[in-house]
């Protein structure tokens, strides 16, 4: 039987092929939009198929598992499989690729090339989420990374060469660590790259600490963990709209997902021993990003720092090593992905009209472009955790999860609970700071008198812009109002994982 997961590689590749044949901008748009829509449909179908399949096989760690030998001497397979976490991540990626396509409707020049790289990037992302073989995972990770350089370097704005270079180099540095980590896992877990087999074999305990640090930092760079976050503000600020969306919305999630799937899941003992170090780092990045966002004046920088803060929360929650916090982390990835994509889409649209991203040069946009402004307010409210929007559900799950009693870290720190509670309270404080910087921007940018009289002639959103923002807003609201939809997909997936991890906690 044909494995549905391969669709997520085949569709983008076919789209790429079709893009080569296109002749004018209309055809390019049509092809890209068709490809993105097919992906979205496939992702929605996957959710449905996953839920029905899960009902049949409630105990399997992964569903839709498939395996093809690729390179025999090194035991490398093309192995795919998903659990609830990957399904949600695939859905998120599909939504963002879909909306991103519409957000970059008017990209000029080199539209065709732009979409080529864009689709290639999404191929890497989807491939990463469906793989359960470390090698293919890493390969797709790199596939996702490289187009970023060109997309920022060619279609970016501002100090784009610097930003593209910085972003690529830092992420490459991270992936270098990752590669060492993956090779280490390969040699110390019975010469296999398959995650399920590695879990069965167990990684050599003597090597776990080193490999944990390597892989966690490797993915942590992508997850914008303090102090490896500096690529993110510059990179996001210079990237074109849809690339910012895809990058903050999905690519940064690769980091969180990887930390969870590789670093913690495969090296549970090291996670119990060393997790607290990274908990300090991620806790710092939550508060740090929020404070830094308070004084920035460039919209994209503000949002990038806010991403640092929110993504820090993802890694923070993962390190709590319990089911509640981890499902909170996945919800937060989902929520932050949608929300930040919405933010970047709106910022891109505003920038496309006013040609400035400096909040000091704008004001009273509510009177000029009400649709975009309302969208921005909704994104802002989602970001500061308004109930009914996705951010609230995710953050609250994380906070409550980090307060849950759990035996982790007791062996190292004596009373692990006290330590976790202290950090949970510190990170919880970020909700206030988030409110400060969000309201500051909303108040300055959208409210108040019109700052620049020339802005009065600007128009409101076009149909494709409305289409992409409304899709995102709808997704945010659905998750916010009916969180158990997403939670239901997740629930069964975390049981065996957390059990596996807790077996090592003292």
């Amino acid at each position, binding site marked *: 039987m044909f494995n549905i997961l391969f669709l997520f590689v085949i569709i983008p590749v076919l789209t790429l092929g079709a893009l080569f044949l296109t002749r004018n901008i209309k055809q390019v748009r049509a092809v890209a939009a068709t490809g993105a829509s097919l992906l979205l449909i496939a992702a929605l179908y996957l959710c449905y198929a996953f839920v029905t399949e899960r009902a049949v096989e409630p105990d399997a760690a992964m569903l839709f598992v498939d395996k093809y030998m690729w390179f025999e001497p090194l035991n490398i397979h093309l192995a795919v499989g998903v659990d609830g976490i990957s399904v949600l991540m695939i859905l998120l990626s599909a939504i963002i690729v879909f909306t991103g396509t519409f957000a970059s409707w008017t990209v000029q020049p080199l539209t065709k090339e732009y979409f080529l790289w864009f689709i290639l990037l999404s191929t890497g992302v989807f491939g990463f989420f469906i793989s359960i073989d470390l090698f293919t995972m890493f390969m797709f990770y790199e596939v996702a990374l490289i187009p970023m350089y060109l997309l920022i370097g060619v279609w970016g704005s501002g100090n784009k060469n610097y930003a593209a270079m*910085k972003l690529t*180099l*830092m992420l490459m540095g991270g992936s270098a660590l990752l590669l060492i980590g993956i090779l280490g896992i390969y040699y110390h877990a019975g010469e296999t790259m398959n995650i399920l087999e590695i879990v069965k074999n167990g990684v050599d305990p003597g090597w776990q600490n080193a490999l944990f640090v390597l892989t966690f930092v490797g993915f942590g760079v992508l997850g914008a963990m*303090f*102090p490896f*976050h*500096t690529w993110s503000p510059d990179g996001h600020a210079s990237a074109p709209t849809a690339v910012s969306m895809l990058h903050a919305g999905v690519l940064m999630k690769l980091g969180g997902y990887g930390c969870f799937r590789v670093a913690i899941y495969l090296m549970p003992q090291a996670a119990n021993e060393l997790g607290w170090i990274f908990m300090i780092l991620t806790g710092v990045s939550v508060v*740090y990003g929020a*404070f*830094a966002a*308070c*004084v*920035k004046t460039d919209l994209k920088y503000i949002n990038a720092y806010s991403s640092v803060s929110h993504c820090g929360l993802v890694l923070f929650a993962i390190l709590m090593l*319990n*089911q*509640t916090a981890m*499902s909170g982390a996945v919800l937060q990835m989902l929520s932050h992905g949608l929300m930040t994509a919405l933010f970047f889409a709106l910022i891109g649209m505003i920038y496309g009209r006013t040609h400035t991203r400096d909040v000091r040069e704008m004001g*009273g946009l*509510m*009177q000029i472009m009400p649709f975009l402004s309302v969208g921005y307010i909704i994104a802002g*409210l989602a970001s*500061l*955790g*308004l*109930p*009914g929007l996705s951010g*609230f*559900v995710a953050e*609250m*799950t994380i*906070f*409550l*999860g980090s*307060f*849950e*009693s759990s035996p982790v870290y007791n062996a190292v720190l004596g009373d692990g609970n006290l330590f976790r*509670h202290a950090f*949970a*309270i510190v990170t*919880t*404080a970020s*909700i*206030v700071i988030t*409110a*400060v910087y969000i*309201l*500051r921007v909303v*108040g300055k940018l*959208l*409210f*108040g*008198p019109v700052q620049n009289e020339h802005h009065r002639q600007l128009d409101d959103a076009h149909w494709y812009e409305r289409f992409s923002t409304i899709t995102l807003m709808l997704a945010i609201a659905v998750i916010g109002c009916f*969180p*158990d939809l997403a*939670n239901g997909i997740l*629930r069964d997936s975390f049981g065996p994982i957390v059990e596996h991890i807790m077996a090592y906690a003292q």
Partner: protein
Amino acid sequence: MDLSYSIITLLLPLFMFLLLGLFGMKMPKKVAGILGTCAMLVTTVIAYGVALKYFFDPQYMVDGVRQGQMVFNETWLTLGHGLKVDMGIFIDPIAAMMLIVISTISMMVHLYSLGYMHGEKGFQRYYAFLALFTFSMLGLVVATNIFQMFIFFEMVGVSSYLLIGFYYEKNSAVSASKKAFIVTRFADLGFLIGIMLLAYYCGTFDFKTLMSNPGSIVNSAAGVTFLGCSAASWALALIFVGGAGKSAMFPLHIWLPDAMEGPTPVSALIHAATMVVAGVYLVARMFPMYLFTPEVLDLITVTGAVTALYAAVVACAQTDIKRVLAFSTISQIAFMFTALGVARPELHEGVGYMASMFHLFTHAMFKGLLFLCAGAIIHMVHSNEMDAMGNLRKYMPITHITFLIACLAIAGIPPFAGFFSKDEILVAVYQQSTFWGVWMSAVAGLTAFYMFRLYYRIFWWNKPDYSHHTPHDCEWVMTVPLVILALISCVAGFIPFGHFVTWNGGNYDIHIMWEVAAPSIAIAVVGIVVATVLYRKENSLPDRIASSMKGLHRAAYRRFYIDEIYMFVTHKIIFGIICRGISWFDHNIVDGFMNLLARVTNGAAYSIRKLQSGQIQMYVWVYYIGALLLALVTCLLLI
């Protein structure tokens, strides 16, 4: 009417919010306004039906004690370890009482706004936000668990933010809304941490489970202490902080006076009658647990008493009529908190709890009335300042009478509503401690003084120049709510409140204790007389008194510089030092380090690149010297 109809009171405003919010701009203003008001009317009727059914149907009484009813309870979000967040409707005496309060005031405000907001830009948006607020507030009071309450706490915060910033083109409104949201958010942080602590020790959010055996829960957490208090005390104190922020208790009160930037009906609804008492409601809801942590109750008492006096003193010096009312609101809510703080079951059957709720009820009516009157006045005079007013009793008779009734009610003159509830509060406070009793009596006297100062300044004093625009009573949509509320203020005191709302659902007969009531009436009359002497006719005596107490007056006028302190802390310290410091650190240290790495690599590359100059002569030179060195070595080795 079955209790399950109460779901309509929630869903209808939510539906109206979505309808008006999404399609309001497409419909004419009038249609939107009338649609919103009609929906609110339906909501009100159902809310009354539900509340009355609950109060009067004996099936909800078991052994003379009214039982809370769980009408709906659906799982909304499942967390691990058996912890889950539910959404539902829970009706008990205070919830039913709040249903009445909220629906009444909201109905009045909806009606009143048809006139007040007439012709405003964003009329539809205004009604959408009002519906959103009504939905959130109703959701808050019928919450089945503390987390649902938190959710709706946030929602009312946002509706309040949106409504304060309704005139978003005005910078002052924008910053006021921002301030309100951030200050209450800060308090909500405490609330959230309290919830997390509570959930950690109890494993549930559910009110019913929590209240069924509060003692064992509190004691289970008693072993863990932090700074000398048990974890349960901390949790409850933090939850109180959340409530105090929403209810504008000192020192988190700073947002409320600024919130008067919003339209006046909004001030009446949100910032006088309903949302600001959410904090009181929260503490009352958790009251059985608070009983086991007397130190937190003492904290509540002290906070309430200090705030009451502070706000009363500041109110005496304000000149903006809405600000006077705002400070009076703070002061009155502080009364409610104090009453809750001194309530003990063993003291007079827990009268403090009943008194607090009673005062909440009456205060909502007369304070709503005061704000709506103020709105009518501002609508006519186009100014908030006292100096622009005076002698209005001739021009606006209905407003004058209703305002006077409200003033008498708040001052505590029998037989108006405020007398009864305030008297019960004072009784409760005297039961606990004479010191706080005297203190609160003095505050009550101050209340009478500043309210009548306000009254005389608006309706008597002198007659400013109204030549360009003669004030008159407003149209019927605005006066009808005034009259209705005035009527309620007159008669609400005679409601046997103790039969409906007590701390344990039992019965309590209100009987006036004249040894407390008589002095408090006397002190209120003294306050009124002083105000009459000073402000009935225009004279220079108030100015002279003010200048003789220059420092005090000035400090009171500037609200004892609390705002300035906040400004200093937030702007100078948090923004100036922490945020900028972190930004600097990020740019120079973290980023600088990365750039340094890049620069070192680059520099190394450049310095090596110099060798590859492309000049053949240099290559030859290097090659030649190398060859010579080799030759030299060979020579030295061979010879």
